[in-house]
């Protein structure tokens, strides 16, 4: 049990650190956030009545008081789930905006990340099983190169070729707008059609890390005595490859799965921005473009919490999959 408790403790600690980091970063910026914000609301070269600034400050609930009081208020607000009002989408709250964007990203990232993991792990395992063969060479060198392609560049090329030139897919958006978002097949079909290119942009590089990881781990586990013993046992190749070699080799990838989520979320920012996909990445990009600090901060916090949660899940899953780490649980 100790293993799981320590993982949860780590999660709580990192969560606190992330929340605090999120508090600190915006406060490191020079200048008065209220001034910036009011200026933004009013337009660049307008002279503003100081009273208006004050009014806006009150209206938006901009922080007041000592830094410590602000921190306490902030923590309380976070616990309440109150992240303030978005500057860009005023008077809508940050939470409202995130609630709208989150499902898009969860689906996009979820699907691509899981698919990438599965494809990558399978390819990596296959390459390792036939190591030094043609397939392995192609996969290894291929992923060495493809792995270096920037996400956003792939997205640009895809959009250029498949949307601009061939017009097979829509260039942008999460749905066409003709169909209002609803729980209908028509809408889902439309959303999937719009999601293919963004997903593909992520999917081209998503498996690379897993291919490398799985191949290297499995080359290692294939050389391990238990795999050789499994062969000597006269087990079928499939069983040896899956239960003995791959089963152990996949363990580091499980931890990597959560960490990889952070990477793919990074990619999502660019891909969503390029495709105008209405998810968290796009929202974050817009928040940055518009200096919408509350929104930006909260998205960063959500992203971090998402990765932390995924990490916690991975750790727990790891504990379940690898009996060695929960040694204490037994004795």
């Amino acid at each position, binding site marked *: 049990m100790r293993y799981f408790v320590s993982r949860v403790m780590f999660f709580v600690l990192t969560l606190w650190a992330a929340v605090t980091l999120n508090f600190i970063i915006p406060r490191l910026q020079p200048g008065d956030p209220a001034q910036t914000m009011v200026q933004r609301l009013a337009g660049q070269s307008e002279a503003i009545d100081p009273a208006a600034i004050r009014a806006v400050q009150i209206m938006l609930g901009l922080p007041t008081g000592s830094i410590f009081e602000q921190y306490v208020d902030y923590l309380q607000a976070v616990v309440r789930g109150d992240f303030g009002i978005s500057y860009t989408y005023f008077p809508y709250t940050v939470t409202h905006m995130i609630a709208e964007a989150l499902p898009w990203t969860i689906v996009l990232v979820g699907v691509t990340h899981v698919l990438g993991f599965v494809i990558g792990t399978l390819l990596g395992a296959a390459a390792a099983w036939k190591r*030094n063969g043609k397939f392995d060479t192609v996969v290894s060198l291929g992923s060495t190169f493809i792995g270096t392609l920037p996400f956003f560049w792939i997205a640009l090329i895809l959009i250029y070729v498949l949307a601009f030139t061939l017009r097979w897919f829509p260039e942008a958006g999460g749905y066409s707008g003709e169909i209002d978002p609803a729980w209908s097949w028509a809408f889902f079909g439309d959303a999937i059609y719009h999601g293919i290119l963004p997903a593909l942009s992520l999917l081209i590089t998503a498996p690379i890390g897993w291919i490398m990881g799985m191949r290297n781990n499995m080359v290692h586990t294939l050389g391990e*005595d238990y795999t*050789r*013993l499994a062969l*000597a*046992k006269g*087990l*079928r190749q499939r069983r040896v490859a899956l239960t003995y070699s791959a089963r152990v080799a996949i363990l580091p990838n499980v931890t990597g799965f959560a960490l990889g989520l952070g990477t793919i979320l990074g990619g999502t920012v660019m891909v969503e921005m390029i495709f105008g996909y209405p998810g968290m990445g796009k929202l974050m990009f817009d928040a940055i473009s518009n200096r919408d600090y509350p929104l930006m901060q909260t998205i960063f916090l959500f992203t971090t919490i998402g990765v932390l949660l995924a990490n916690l899940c991975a750790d727990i899953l790891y504990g379940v999959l690898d*009996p*060695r780490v929960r040694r204490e649980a037994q004795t």
Partner: protein
Amino acid sequence: MTERASLEPGAVSPEGAGSPLLSVENLSVSYAATRAVRDVSFQLHDGEFVGLLGESGSGKTTLGNALLRLLPPPGRISEGRVMWWGSARTGEAREGPEPHRAGRDLTTIGQEDLRRLRWREMSTVFQSSMNSLNPVLTIETQFRDVIEEHTAMRGAPARQRIGQLLEMVMLDPSYMRFYPHELSGGMKQRVALALALALRPRFVLLDEPTTGLDVIVQRSILDNVRALQREQGFAVLLISHDLGTVMEVSDRVMVMYAGKIVEDQRASTMIAEPMHPYTRGLLGAYADPRAREVEIAYIPGRPPDLSRPGQRGCLFAPRCQEAIDVCRAEEPVLSAMGQGEAACHVAEAAYAAGDGRRDQSARAGEVFTAPAGRTDRGPRVERRQEVLAVAGVHKRYRSRRGLKVTEVDAVQDVSFVLRAGTVTALVGQSGSGKTTLARMVTGVERPDTGSVTFGELRVDRLRGRGLKAYRRHVQLVFQDPFAALNPAHTIGYTLSRPLINHQDVTGAALRPAIEELLERVGLSPASTYIEKYPHQLSGGQQQRVVVARALAPDPEIIVADEPISMLDVSIRAEILELLDTLVRERGIAMLYITHDLLSARVLADEVLVLHNGKLVESGATLEVIRGARDAYTRQLLDAIPNPFATRRG
């Protein structure tokens, strides 16, 4: 447990059977440019227990892997055949010897056919049981795997069978629910053995099955194997570097050197009449520690590098003291002589001359005679000056797991003294507390109570600078010489550091000082070693460098932690001799830590036997070993493999 009707335990006469179970014909295996196994032929008969003896690099494990067709890439069988004469049978029913026994070449047989043969007919136990069990599967699953793959047994009967198998190797059936990491090394090895016997195969390959285990456990497992083999009548090929073990349990022993089998004969006759000089050299490394006079021998030099092309003649010739001209020109082939086979021109000539029995006292190689054998030793011990005194030390370790605090008494009330020019052996199993004691002597660890005194210095109270200064007086020799030398530095650099730090030797004086050290440990000419990196030296040479480094500050005390256990048998005595010479000549007090009573017997003046943190026996070496009072000491003594002792029933 049902017995094979047709095969009476131990009733197999290896020579008598008409056709072999397994025959290896001109087998060669190569790894890239290295020919690891060269033109090996032998036969194995039903129920035979054959030992395959060889030092590291001799190709014995590669040969084993080749037999099972488990060579890791880039290894490949370049020539020859491995014929299997037992056939693959289906179903559970095991009938008598088949009327039709068609041989099948394991090197070319199809994957699927091979798979069917595996485990049902031939199984194996790998060297390191730490890694041969899948860490993420329970013991039960790993048994079930083979049972369900090869038989129709499922569910409860399978579980029952697994229980039986575990009991067979003296493990409680409840362990089947465990994961490998929850078992001790010995238990894992027993599981691996039970697993190998799960389908009652006709042939089991045991590759160093007990290496790395404590001697007592080692002994118990080997006894278990032998008993089971007699009971079930499977054929065994036992691969080991440990001549004592192999000789003791095998019916027949094959000795491998540089990729070739150089001798093959029955164990009983091999002890009496080893034919190949190499075999004789190996045998020389063994002795009965309880004997009145003990002397052990070693073979100077190192095995050849098989990746180097164009080597001619007998590859052992450079290390052979009996070598004659033809040895350097022509490689001998394995041919029948005496009571077995050997590949040696000298032996061949001797047998051809009709007088196979050469002078038995002429052991091959250099001889190192145990000091205790010299009658003048005893009294001198008393006169030696006391250098370090350990008095009533006690050490308790606390480990916390969650809320549970476990306390282990690593050392309890131990006292001893180290004297100049004297070797004190600290003997015990792993976990007996000998490492903790050694760390106290070096000042790395402090006792909870008691004292460690070096002259006027309270070692147990040293810290920081004082401790650093103390290290000038106490030096270490490590178990694994390769790990003890920084691979990134040359020998010269490594030796220069203690000279600079402790002896203030600098500038032009440095190189002569290093050369002197090297010469003193027998690495000469020294200049050829200074620029070398550790990996360019052999194990024995590396250990000499480690010794040289320990000598550099001119210490009063040397703590040698199992300094020979990682070395090949044929060169162990060489290092012991070096240590002995240095201790005597330079009046160094040595704490010699070992689990091996034979080496203690040979090297040490005094022996301390440590068991569970307590000193169970101590005294002059000869007295302790010949007149062991403590049961544990006797157990340790019994566990020493001794090819010369009478075979156990």
